[in-house]
């Protein structure tokens, strides 16, 4: 996609009919998102328990760490018994696991996937690469600190972390959600300008709307 694709233009259909396409208004929402805060305390406590016990992960592996997620679905580690399941579409998932190094090219896809997820949503940084760049800290095309681009709820240190540490990380995330601290989605929207500024510094030739879904 380039910036020209987003411009208003006339398109000829297969049967010769001409119609106007305005991609920004037709395919994206140009309205700025607004934060949605938790409601009643007691109700929210119960709902947070439900959210923590039913975490749906977006099946999106950004780097080499994705290989550590596969054993979690199989008999040896079986994360399903902790209420963790994988979904193939960002619309239905709650947790984005950024698994390993994040190249500039992938960052764009990660941002788009993250913004398509619904509030409340959580981000987990897997491996040292998401904390400080790890072994890629001086690479020309990977980012060093994931926290500058997306609100991260919890990290799992290691290179590579074993599946056991991933399960430990999920348990940590559950604790955070149950305490009512998993408000990354609202944090992202409140500080949208700062996050967008950081993202635009890295992604050259920004060719998508500021908030896309």
């Amino acid at each position, binding site marked *: 996609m380039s910036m020209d694709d987003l411009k208003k233009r006339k398109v000829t259909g297969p049967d010769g009919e001409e119609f106007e396409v305005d991609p920004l208004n037709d395919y994206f929402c140009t309205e700025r998102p607004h934060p949605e805060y938790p409601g009643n305390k007691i109700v929210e406590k119960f709902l947070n328990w439900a959210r923590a*016990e039913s975490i749906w992960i977006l099946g999106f592996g950004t780097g080499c760490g994705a290989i550590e997620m596969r054993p979690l679905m199989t008999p040896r580690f079986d994360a399903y*018994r902790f209420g963790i399941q994988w979904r193939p579409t960002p619309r*239905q998932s709650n947790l984005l696991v950024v698994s390993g190094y994040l190249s500039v090219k992938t960052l764009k896809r990660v941002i788009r996937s993250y913004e398509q997820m619904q509030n409340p949503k959580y981000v987990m940084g897997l491996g040292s690469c998401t904390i400080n760049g790890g072994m890629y800290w001086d690479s020309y095309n990977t980012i060093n600190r994931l926290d500058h681009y997306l609100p991260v709820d919890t990290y799992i240190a290691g290179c590579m972390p074993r599946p056991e540490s991933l399960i430990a990380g999920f348990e940590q995330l559950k604790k955070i959600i149950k305490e009512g601290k998993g408000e990354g989605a609202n944090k992202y929207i409140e500080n949208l300008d700062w996050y967008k500024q950081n993202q635009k510094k890295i992604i050259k030739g920004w060719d998508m709307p500021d908030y896309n879904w």
Partner: protein
Amino acid sequence: MKFEWIKILYAVWALLIILNIGLVFQGVTQKIAARLGRRYGIRWYQPYIDLMKNYAMRSSITHGVMFYLGPVFRLSGGIGMFLFMPVIFDSPYFQNFSFSGDLILISYFMFFGTLGMALGAGEGGHPYSAIGITRGLSQMTAAEVPQILAIISVAVQYQTISITNIVAAQQGGIMNWTVMTNPFATAAALLALLGSMMRPPFDVVLAPQEIPIGPPTEFHSNFLAVLQTNRAIFPMAKMVLFVNIFFGGATNWPLMIAKMFLLYMWPIFIGVAFPRFRVDQSIRWFIKIPAVIGIIAVLLVR
């Protein structure tokens, strides 16, 4: 005929029971499948938590009016089908709104949800939704042929289109059940059932490995929760219908649940044993084998 308002209360009560049965069956089935794969598996009450979580999502976005109506149509298809069906034979409480022509109305309701879903998913605009819906509608239409043939056969056999009368005719022992008196119709209907249960070999419609994940791709938060509610109610309504028509109905809930569970295991056993069909293959299969059995059932019935 006088309408009794108390029937509404009984119907809602039956609907609640069936919703819980559906959710528990889902969890238990996944648990069994996991144990077969040597996994520990999800907790049996996980479907409840998933449902609550999805209803509790704070934000949701829409793609238009039909996007809203898609899940609503789907759910009303499931609930509508259940509400016009007698559940427990001879019980004054669990007859729902069954009347003398309910078998025909239910056959319509079975297809209603799929059509609503087609409109809703189409407006979602995701290419995978469109592909999934195209596949789903073709497969469902093919599976509908043997099913309707079986229903016609049963209706001719008992000379009635009232489910209550069909159940009444089967009372008095296992030899009176339709599965014994009209085996061809039962075979056609059971094979047709496979096509609408979204299990292998007929799950190409929403198989995560093929098209992630078919019609519900764009549905999220509350929309997805409504669809999940329907996924608990609709298969159970079908089970109740099949138990009533082919397996002698039931005079109490435990017997009904036992029969439903055994019947529910039928598509699942087939599913774990057979690989997935493509849509063109499954349509050919439905027309070649179950439909022919259904025609034989209509021809042989007296």
